[in-house]
């Protein structure tokens, strides 16, 4: 196998958390002062494929900013795909409540070249034809699905989550508005200039290793638990659909780490899945940029039971003494899910990028990407679940 060219190795720096020392061959290298635009390098000797991840923070301020981010990401993805068409690489784009991720699965020998290509694309104003194509695509997409109940609900909930108040920020406007001048605005500024330098993670099959270092301090999911309101904010938005949508945001107790929050999220998903009935159409969960657990679910408007009550009850049960055995069962399943997510280079890269976007240091981000061996105990998860509090609930549709 050909070797990775030297320049990335040169900027790849070498420190490693002993939290992951037990994972032989999975070591992260990090310099105390890593230059901007140089990647955090995570090394896994057994990987057949490397990954390059570039991530910008989620647009968390306004509806308009979210539109700009979506259009810019579409155009940037097209630009990167065009310029890497002759490379052994597949570029994908993901977005969640924390960030917007451009993840390349790439042959190890092409990793540096792809990284440099992505970097150039992010630093350069986007070509007008790609931006226009992106905005046209968004217009068509919004015309098709913008007024669907799910889309309306998402806009309303996202607006409430952004502002943490009942006042909407423009998201309640019709779906097809907000495009005026969008292409010009997106094309005017390079992505890296608009949102600041992206975070970079390279997960590779070789690199410098060093002696185990002390474990990094745990990465808290959010540091603002003390500001949680005493009573949850509740909002009922009328809708004309036969489906009832409910969005709930919960705050974790202080001292909760990101790994613990992720495991509680997965365990809750397993718990809801096991309680599923025909009235529950769909649900998804995420941890947003403010460190809150956000659960969206849709049910039949005529459901005989309240699924938001079931959701609250599921969380209470996870934190109770009676739920101890069930929590242990669900944790088994969550462990496998977490390992499968982090085993591929692309999954590890995205996890490390998420941690960096949340303010992690390099060792903390590397530890998070390698956290399969340091999963929280069932007892600790029970403690976390018992301290989870509801801070926001939005119901869209019939009550």
């Amino acid at each position: 196998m050909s070797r990775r060219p030297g320049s990335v190795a040169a900027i790849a720096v070498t420190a490693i958390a002993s939290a992951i020392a037990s994972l032989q061959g999975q070591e992260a290298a990090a310099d105390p002062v890593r230059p901007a635009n140089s990647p955090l390098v995570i090394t896994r000797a057994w990987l057949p494929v490397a990954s390059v991840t570039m991530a910008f923070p989620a647009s968390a301020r306004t509806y308009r900013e979210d539109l700009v981010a979506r259009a810019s990401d579409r155009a940037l993805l097209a630009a990167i795909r065009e310029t890497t068409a002759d490379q052994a690489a597949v570029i994908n784009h993901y977005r969640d409540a924390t960030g917007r991720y451009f993840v390349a699965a790439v042959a190890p020998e092409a990793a540096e070249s792809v990284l440099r290509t992505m970097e150039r694309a992010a630093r350069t104003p986007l070509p007008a034809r790609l931006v226009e194509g992106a905005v046209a695509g968004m217009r068509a997409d919004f015309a098709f699905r913008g007024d669907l109940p799910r889309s309306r609900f998402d806009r309303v909930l996202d607006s409430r989550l952004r502002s943490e108040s009942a006042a909407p920020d423009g998201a309640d406007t019709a779906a097809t508005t907000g495009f005026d001048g969008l292409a010009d605005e997106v094309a005017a500024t390079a992505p890296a200039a608009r949102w600041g330098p992206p975070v970079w993670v390279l997960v590779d099959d070789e690199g410098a290793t060093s002696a185990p270092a002390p474990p990094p301090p745990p990465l808290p999911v959010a540091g603002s638990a003390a500001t949680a309101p005493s009573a949850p904010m509740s909002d009922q938005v009328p809708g004309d659909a036969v489906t009832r949508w409910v969005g709930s945001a919960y705050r974790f107790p202080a001292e909760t780490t990101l790994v613990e929050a992720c495991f509680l999220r997965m365990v809750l998903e397993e718990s809801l899945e096991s309680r599923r009935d025909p009235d529950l159409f769909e649900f998804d969960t995420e941890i947003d940029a403010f460190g809150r657990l956000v659960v969206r679910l849709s049910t039949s408007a005529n459901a005989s039971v309240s699924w938001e009550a079931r959701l609250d009850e599921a969380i209470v049960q996870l934190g109770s003494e009676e739920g101890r055995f069930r929590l242990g069962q669900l944790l088994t399943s969550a462990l496998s899910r977490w390992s499968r997510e982090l085993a591929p280079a692309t999954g590890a890269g995205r996890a490390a990028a998420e941690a960096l976007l949340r303010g992690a240091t390099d060792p903390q981000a590397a530890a998070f990407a390698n956290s399969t061996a340091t999963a929280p105990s069932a007892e600790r998860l029970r403690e976390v679940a018992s301290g989870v509090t509801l801070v926001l609930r939005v119901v869209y549709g019939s009550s």
Partner: protein
Amino acid sequence: MPLVASLLCIAGLIGAAGPGLRQTGAQAPPGDPMVPDSVLGIPAGPTLILERTEGIPVVGIRVSAPLDPAWPGAARILVEQALNRARDRAEVIGAELWGGVQDGRIAFHAIADARYADELAWVVRMLTAEPEATGAGRPIARENARLDQLAETPRGRLILEVEAKILGSGGGGALPVPAVGDVQDMWLRSFARDRLRILVLGDLPLYWVFANLSRIGASAEAQAGAPILPPPRTLSFPESPLYSWTAAAFTLGPSHDPAVLAAVAALRLGLQQSDIADAAVHLLEGPDDRSGWLGITAQATRGRDADAALASALALVSEEGLDAWWMRGVAAARSDLVAAASTPGGWLALSDRYHSADGSTNARTALERFNTLRREDLAAVLEQFQATLFRPRIDR
């Protein structure tokens, strides 16, 4: 347990492929994950392909068996029954479970956290167990419904034609529907222990692999007779009232061959980018049976437009036609291979696809083949085209 103890003894002898065991193929060059660490053959038992990766947080096991006979319908039923059998057990440990026909083999994989390797082996044993008579009704009904659905549309009829050609069941899209006994016979033939490949990805000792996986499949005593296909089902083909359809099918060679994969990717790009007037043209990829059959359909309001569109599409399948797309096709197919290798399941599938008994091919050699493909390699691939081209009637 005596069985386990004896397997442990065998494993103890494995150092240099001890008595009774044969090391097949070449040992991996150190540190290349694209090449299995070791390939071992157990006398009258399965071939074990081991990817021992220190530190990987998951364990993945794939079992594959030849498609015997080449009857995708029976394989689908066998797979569905197996997944139904193992699903509950897999969910308990959060394992990813997959089954299907891939590269001409019936294959399953199960992937879970490395701490649950023992439970995962149990899941794999359930996947590969003999199919029961009970529980077969629903998959068989689904296969019947699938044939009816395919017969509804011209594109579906082309798939039926190709499947019938592969199975040798006659023209006109005539396909038999398997009964319970056919599925059990297929298991006896395909899952005969010495025909299985077991691929293991994980940080596991060899004795664990022997103890847990070397006895799966049908034993040598359980023999099935020669396959006898039941008569094909009669299907009704409704006429297409609005459009005229024409179609052609052909193969460019074995579907796992990097040059063929590149040619298919080039053809796909060429069809997407070509401006064929007054008609819709689509490329269909045939059953995943390693034969590499492809189909092209052309649909238009007038018959002559459909014929002209099909002729334009088939003209692309030539050195001149694909010249502009060939190198992009190579790059696209190479990227697909890299993307597939990025997940444990895809990694195992590639190891299986490119395994050869003499060790001369593996995922690494396939990737290198992509890197060395040149313009002149296109000609050799296209030789198959004219020899295999046929034009079934699907517009009825």
